[in-house]
Every structure is written in C-alpha cells, then in structure tokens.
C-alpha cells in the first residue's frame, strides 16, 4: 500500500482526491445527514478506528520491518482506540500523502487524521475540519550538505531548495525569503520520497521541512547522516496535531480529551508500568483520571476506565515522546517546547475533572 503510493505519487494522489471527492458527492447523495454526531457509533459498530497517517516519516508514523505502524502520530491513534474500543490494536491504518489527507478526512474515509499536520487559520476555518490538540510543537528548518559550508539560512542566496508540495512549508519558505529579501528557487515535488531523494542526489542546495522531519530524514534517508547539517534557523511555528471532521462535536471532544489525558498522566506521574498500582492511589486527580472514584467517561460517551486503558496501552505523553522521537530514540530530538508546562515547555492540558 505505502510502496505503491511512493512509486506512483502522481497517480494515487490525484486519483484519490478525485475518488474521495466523488465519494463525498455519493455519500451526500444517499445520506445527506449521516455525519452529525455519528462517528462514535460508526467506530463502535465496525469495532475499528480508521486513522489517517503519514506514508512514512520515521518517528511519527512509519511501518516497521514487520509491517506494524509505529511513531508518535500512530500512538495517538492507538490511545484513542484503547479509550473508545478497549483495544489499541483495533485501528485501521490509512497511509495518506500531504495532498490526500484533508479530502480523506472530509469524505469520511478516515475518522481521525493523525499525520503531522500543522494547525493554521485557513485549515481550521475553511476545510470543514477541526483541530483537536497539539501533539508536537515544531518549526520549519533547513538541511544542507556540510560540504557547501553554509551555516545560516541567510546564505542561501539564489539557492535551489527542494520542498514537498501540499504543505504549509512551501508558503513559509516564500514568506521567509521575501522577508529577508533574498531570492531562491523552489523545486517542488509531489511526493515526500521524491523530494527527499532529489535532495540527497544533489539536485538542490538545501531541503526544507519541519525540524522534526529534517531529523527524521537525516537519520533514515541520508547516505551518511554526518555529511548533512540542520541549520539553526527555525522560520515558522508549526503546531502539529490530529484533526477531525466538523459537525461531530462528541467525537471531537473524545479525541481532544484522549490527548489531554496522556499529558495529564505525565504530569501526575502515571506510566505504562505503574498505572495498575496507581489505581489504589488516594490522590483525587489520579482517582478521577483512572475512574476509581468518579466516572469521567460517562460525560464523553465512554466508560470510566477510558484513560486507564490509554495509559496501559501506550504510556503517557512523555513515554510516547521518548520512545519515538526523544533523545534515546534514533531521531534524538530534544524535548524542548514539547516538555510539560511546569518543566519549561508548552504542553499544558486542561484538568480532567
């Protein structure tokens, strides 16, 4: 599935956009009101969460050698499946490229889009989609071959810069170089793989995407990771997180709080390993979260152990981060902005009560 998308980027995406569009037409024709508030019912009925993920971005969502999907974005979907269906394995993965993702969600092909997607006003206000919560605070950066002796983005005068289409990246790139009054030439590829391949083949003098993506491709795609340098400038804010369809407030709320619960769990020291013991804790916030006293799940349309199952299945946010992208993982990304609010970062969950 993913390999066919990589090899035939043009065909799959345009076809899928068309297919998804016509699907939207057809769905609308036959069941004009089938979308409101029905996602949870549909998920329960088919006993599966359909989750749109990246076709392959190491650390965020990529299939491992056994064909299992792993990564930060993947774990979010697993957590939701655990909360809603009681089993983190009950997820159907739909790998989507940058162009297909919104249409796939709009047309109902996926229940949730967990695919390193930046939240912006245009996307929130005009696509018929809702942003839920930020799962990774990112920023756009550049990678260059060390041989070029470039150490700052400001030196990229007249450079050709490889970039993937269908992302906020293209626009940020133009904005940034316009603001520092430097000319450059974008070389735009439809497929992520094609753009990365062209850069490492030497077609462009620089490659740009989110800093996390740069670390991922340097680690996974570069012939020799040490030959490449990630420039210090971050030229944009890229808050990444899952999106859901508009018009289904219950589902929106579930996804949002499923993510908050992972953050709360870290804040209160609940981990995959100790969550069973913590059930006997007498701290009120922990009791509420694990459903030993209050039933917070009822308000969400779930049972009282929803958060417990999430933590049991994938661990808290910190564990998810460490496992997939953190300093101990292959990507070696610092926690930085993604640390909890009380540890110098931006991750702040509203209280579960």
């Amino acid at each position, binding site marked *: 599935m993913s390999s066919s998308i990589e090899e035939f980027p*043009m065909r799959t995406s345009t076809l899928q956009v068309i297919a998804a569009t016509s699907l939207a*037409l057809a769905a609308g024709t036959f069941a004009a009101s089938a979308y409101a508030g029905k996602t949870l019912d549909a998920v329960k009925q088919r006993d599966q969460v359909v989750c749109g993920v990246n076709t392959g971005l190491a650390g965020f969502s990529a299939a491992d050698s056994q064909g299992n999907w792993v990564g930060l974005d993947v774990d979010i979907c697993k957590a939701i499946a655990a909360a809603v269906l009681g089993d983190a394995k009950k997820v159907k993965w739909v790998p989507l490229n940058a162009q297909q993702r919104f249409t796939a969600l709009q047309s109902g092909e996926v229940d949730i889009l967990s695919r390193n997607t930046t939240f912006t006003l245009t996307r929130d206000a005009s696509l018929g989609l809702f942003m839920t919560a930020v799962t990774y605070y990112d920023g756009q950066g550049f990678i260059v071959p060390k041989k070029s002796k470039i150490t700052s983005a400001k030196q990229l005068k007249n450079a050709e810069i490889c970039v993937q289409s269908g992302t906020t990246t293209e626009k940020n790139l133009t904005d940034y170089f316009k603001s520092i009054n430097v000319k450059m*030439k974008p070389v735009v590829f439809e497929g992520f793989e094609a753009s990365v391949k062209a850069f490492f083949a030497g077609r462009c003098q620089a490659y740009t995407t989110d800093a996390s993506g740069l670390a991922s491709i340097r680690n996974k795609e570069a012939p020799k990771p040490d030959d490449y340098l990630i420039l210090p400038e971050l030229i944009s804010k890229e808050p990444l997180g899952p999106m859901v369809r508009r018009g289904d407030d219950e589902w929106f709320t579930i996804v949002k709080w499923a993510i908050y619960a992972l953050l709360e769990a870290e804040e209160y020291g609940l981990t995959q390993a100790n969550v069973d013991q913590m059930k006997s804790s007498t701290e009120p916030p922990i009791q509420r979260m694990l459903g030993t006293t209050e039933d917070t799940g009822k308000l969400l349309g779930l049972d009282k152990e929803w958060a417990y199952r999430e933590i049991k299945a994938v661990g808290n946010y910190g564990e998810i981060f460490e496992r997939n992208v953190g300093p101990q993982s292959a990507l070696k990304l610092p926690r930085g902005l993604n640390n909890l609010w009380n540890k110098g970062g931006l991750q702040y969950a509203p209280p579960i009560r």
Partner: protein
Amino acid sequence: MAVIAAAIWFLAHNTLENMRVRGIQSGFGFLAQPAGFDIGESAFAFDSGEPYWKAFLVGLSNTLRAALVGIVLTTILGTLIGIGRLSRNFLVRGLCTGYVELFRNIPVLIQLLMWYTVLNGDWLPPASEALHPLPGIFLSKSGMSFPVPEWEQGHGVSLAGFAIGIVVAWLYRRWARSAFEKTGVARPMVWPALLIACAGALLGWLAGGAPTALEMPVRNDLNVSGGGAVTPEFLAVTLGLTIYTASFVAEIVRSGIQSVSWGQTEAAGALGLSRAQALKLVLLPQALRVIIPPLTNQYLNLTKNSSLAVAVGYPDLVSISNTTLNQTGRAVECITILMAVYLTLSLVTAALMNWYNARSAIRER
C-alpha cells in the same frame, strides 16, 4: 437530454449543499487572492504576492512549453524511426524496431522517473562544482545554463526581418509551385525558403546595429546563476514524453507509408524518381491522409501525459493546482479547473489537426 441535465444539476446541487452543511467553503473567489508561493521556473516573471489565477497561468505556460517542445520533437523523431523501420538496411530496421518495442511497452511514468534519475545521477557534479565544457556553458545536477542575448532594440528589428523573410519565403514557394505546374521545371522548395527566412533575420539583426551583448551565467560558491537555464525536471519531462510518444508515432508513420499500395512505389520508380524523391513526392503525401487522424491522438496523449510531470518536480499545471488545492482546500474547484484546461487544450489540438486533415484529405473531383 433533460434527464442528463437534471442528473448533472442534482449532483452539483448536492455537492454544494453538502459542502455548505459541512462547513467546507467553496467558490472560485480564491483565484483573486495572493498565491503566497514561489514557482521555480516560469515563462514570465511571477512573484509570490500575485494572485492564484496568475500562478495557474504560469503552470499552464509550463505545461504548454513541455507539450509543444514534445510534440515537435516527437514528430521529427517518430517520422525518422517510422521510415527507418522500412529501411532496406538490416541494422537500421532492427534498431528502429527495437526502439519501438522497448519504449512503447514501458509505462511512461516509469520512463519519466528513469530519465530524472539519470539526469540526477552521479555522472554530473552538484551545481557548486558545475562542469564548464565551453565558455558560458555550465552543466550540473541543476541542469544546463547557457548565455542568452540581452534584450535590445536591435533584436526587435531582427525579429521583424525574420517575419518579412518568412513572408518572402512563402511568396517564393508559391511562385515556384505555379512555375512547376506551368513549365514542369521542379525547383527546390525547402532550402531556398529556409535561406530566405534566415537571411531576413540576419539583415534585420545587422540593420538593428548587430547587438551582441550576452547575459552570461556565472558560477558562485553555491550554484550557477544568471543566463538561461534548462532544468533537469524540464529535460526529464520532454525527453521522457518525446521518446515514449515517438514510438507510437513511428508505428503510425510506418503503417501510413505501408498503406500506400506498392504500385505507387513502382510507378514512381518507373518515372525515374529516386527513392528519396519517391518518398517525398509520392508516398508521404498519400500516407499523410492515413497518418494524421491517429497522429492527432498521439498529440493529445502527449499533452495529457505531461500532467505526469509533477512526479519529477516540474511545476506544470497539475503541480500548481495541487499546491493551490492544499493551501486553499478548494478540491472541487481546483480539479474542475484542471479538467476544463486539459479538455480545452485537447479540443483545440483536435480542431487544429482536423483542419490540417481536411486540407490534406483526398479532394474528390
């Protein structure tokens, strides 16, 4: 008719209604908003502050550039190979057959990706170490840079001279043809006409003060800038499309020539025409009637296949449309524009070819 119209109306109405209910904004108003993205290559200057419709025009110009160059090269290459398939020389015939069988049986997308990989291969250095085989020419993974004349008044005069040359050449051909019909003296038609047109351009250039200023590309620490440039993306697209489509055109040309009965060849021989003359004066004109309709199809295919350019990073119409689609979320509108443009391009090509076909068809007298 009424049923079809009603069905179309129902679908359109339903789509809009559903999009409205789901909060998906629609409409073509976005075309007037600033695009906000840069485009790597363009036939005319484009700035990211200009509106989306202009970005679409840039995409269209890039599509047309690839398609037109492709069509011209395909016709030449295809005709040569088609004739080569009928050659009496075993080697030429075998090579041409091999070419056709090889290239028409490999999917065109694979061929595009192959050429792009070749052009990005390690045999070329990165742009910062561009090869410099001739003064003013740079070769690297970023393509080929070459000097272009700086625009001066004199070039305008030169162009005018060229235009006058073409008119004179056309008059010459008309005179030569009528002289041939009256007296039977066959004068050469092609070379003098070409000479006249070129002489016109040369005279115009001299009259305009013979401007020689060239904008030379310069290599710097990072890459090569200035001058004109052909990018590997453009090369991969035109090369791939040309080589692929030429294999079909070759077959069309071969079948067209073979459709002319053997008696015509013998008759031409009996009149004392050489083989080249027989081909040019007797066989090709008759073969054209068979060739043109399927050739039109190939031109249409080539134009439509140019939409695969996006796979190798060439900023064609599809590429621009994809970027726009993602920035504005107007999927239905962008796909509609794409379909309308390709439909128009195809209909225009077909109309031109039909006109040419009508001209070269047998006139019953």
